[in-house]
């Protein structure tokens, strides 16, 4: 019995050492390299300053495609490829396969020359022009717009200012629009005017540095973001599916971009502190943003575990618009996980698709 067990010792030890070596290699690779992201085939159809409008190459024959094109608008302070993270875990890829003509507006990273850009410029100069080009390329006078996070603020403002510009369907994801509750979430507390001075930051840096925005987002859940994320990787080093998913997400999380200084001041001052948008007091280039002018079909998606834009900041838009066709959808997950996590394919994307498909022909 002893003799039969002896030869197994070196083999088992070798296997253990091999596993440790493999895990170390994996750990080094994923922590020091960038994953291949945003792989869905696309072409640039419009540019302005740092902004790019991408058109994803359709995979469904034209006669089977939905007639109304879909424009995706992400936040200003992160890269939009979270919507096209990696094959098999890409909202863009999913929607292209479902037969949508998909476009994505990438705001780019603002430089020092862009510190004066405001919501006014992003909505009326960038978004409006990108939509014009989208219509010219797609040949459709109508479109659906999906805005996520700050992208939802921009699309909401656009929908209110240009209700007759062909916007058929408005989809808002984790939209921070209503800041009535000054105790909901860490951000609202942190930017309290008693202590926090955004003017001083912008005066020093010009734009809001990506590192400071990143710190703010991570500090809301410090253990999960600074320790938990790495422990998840450590515990699953022998699971390629989880490792590759972590690698792609880490690539996105660490790909930081600043936010234009004037936009940041507007976000803190006019929205977080003064709550002008939901109260109908926001002025964009002399035009008052009246949410009651929004008549587009509205899908408002809220993440139940969202700690960045708590549900109370997103819900009230439903009663402030004139849309007769509207749906409030509450899904599992957090601010980002809802759309890019492992459960998105099951809990979020099919709901968005089924709602939009019924309104896109």
């Amino acid at each position, binding site marked *: 019995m002893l003799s039969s067990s002896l030869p197994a010792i070196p083999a088992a030890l070798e296997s253990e050492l091999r596993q440790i070596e493999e895990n170390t290699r994996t750990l080094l690779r994923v922590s020091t390299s960038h994953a291949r992201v945003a792989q869905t085939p696309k072409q640039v159809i419009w540019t*302005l300053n740092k902004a790019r409008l991408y058109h994803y190459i359709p995979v469904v024959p034209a006669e089977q495609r939905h007639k109304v094109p879909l424009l995706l608008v992400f936040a200003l302070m992160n890269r939009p490829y979270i919507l096209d993270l990696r094959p098999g875990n890409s909202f863009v890829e999913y929607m292209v396969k479902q037969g949508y003509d998909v476009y994505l507006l990438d705001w780019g990273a603002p430089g020092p020359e862009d510190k004066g850009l405001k919501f006014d410029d992003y909505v009326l*100069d960038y978004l409006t022009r990108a939509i014009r080009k989208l219509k010219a390329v797609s040949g459709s006078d109508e479109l659906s717009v999906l805005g996520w996070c700050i992208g939802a603020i921009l699309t909401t403002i656009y929908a209110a200012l240009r209700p007759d510009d062909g916007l058929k369907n408005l989809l808002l994801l984790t939209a921070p629009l209503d800041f009535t509750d000054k105790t909901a979430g860490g951000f609202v507390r942190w930017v309290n005017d008693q202590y926090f001075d955004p003017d001083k930051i912008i005066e020093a840096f010009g734009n809001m540095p990506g590192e400071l925005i990143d710190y703010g987002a991570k500090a809301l859940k410090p253990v999960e973001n600074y320790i938990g994320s790495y422990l998840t990787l450590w515990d699953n080093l022998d699971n390629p599916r989880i490792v590759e998913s972590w690698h792609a997400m880490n690539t996105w999380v660490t790909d930081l971009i600043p936010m234009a200084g004037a936009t940041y001041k507007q976000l803190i001052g006019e929205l977080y502190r003064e709550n002008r948008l939901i109260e109908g007091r926001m002025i964009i280039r002399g035009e008052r943003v009246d949410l009651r002018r929004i008549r587009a079909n509205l899908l408002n998606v809220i993440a139940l575990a969202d700690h960045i834009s708590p549900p109370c900041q997103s819900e009230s838009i439903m009663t402030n618009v004139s849309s007769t066709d509207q749906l409030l959808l509450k899904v599992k997950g957090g601010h980002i996980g809802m759309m890019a996590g492992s459960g998105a394919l099951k809990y979020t994307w099919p709901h968005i698709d089924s709602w939009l498909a019924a309104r896109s022909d």
Partner: protein
Amino acid sequence: MSEQQETPNPLDPFDTWTAMRDAGLKSWTAMRDANLEALSKMLIDLVNSEAYSQATSQWLDTYLTLSQPFQRVIETTMTQALTRLNMPVRTEVISLAERLTNVEMRLDDLDAKLDDIQRAIKALAASNRAADTPAEAKEIH
């Protein structure tokens, strides 16, 4: 097969060590997760407190106040050095970039007008075709 793997061979020191290590790791992981959960709750409460908001804002304010004079000195020195070297300074590059964006906007305006013209021509051609079709049909018959 799996049962055989789970039950360590008492005469195999490596197997016994592996089993002990796995059991130890399992209990350590459970303990670690429980501790982290408690720590997480505590820190989330902390970062949501008024005291934390005040402390981070004050820290940031102090940092900005202290760093600003140095930043100004660096900016002034760099501007003087670049000017002496006959090189464009930061503000000039920024101004140039802003002008480029304005040029891009004008180009985009032209592009919009061209798209409009193209659409109008296509619509006109389509209506002409529609008007011509019956006449051609008559000629054939």
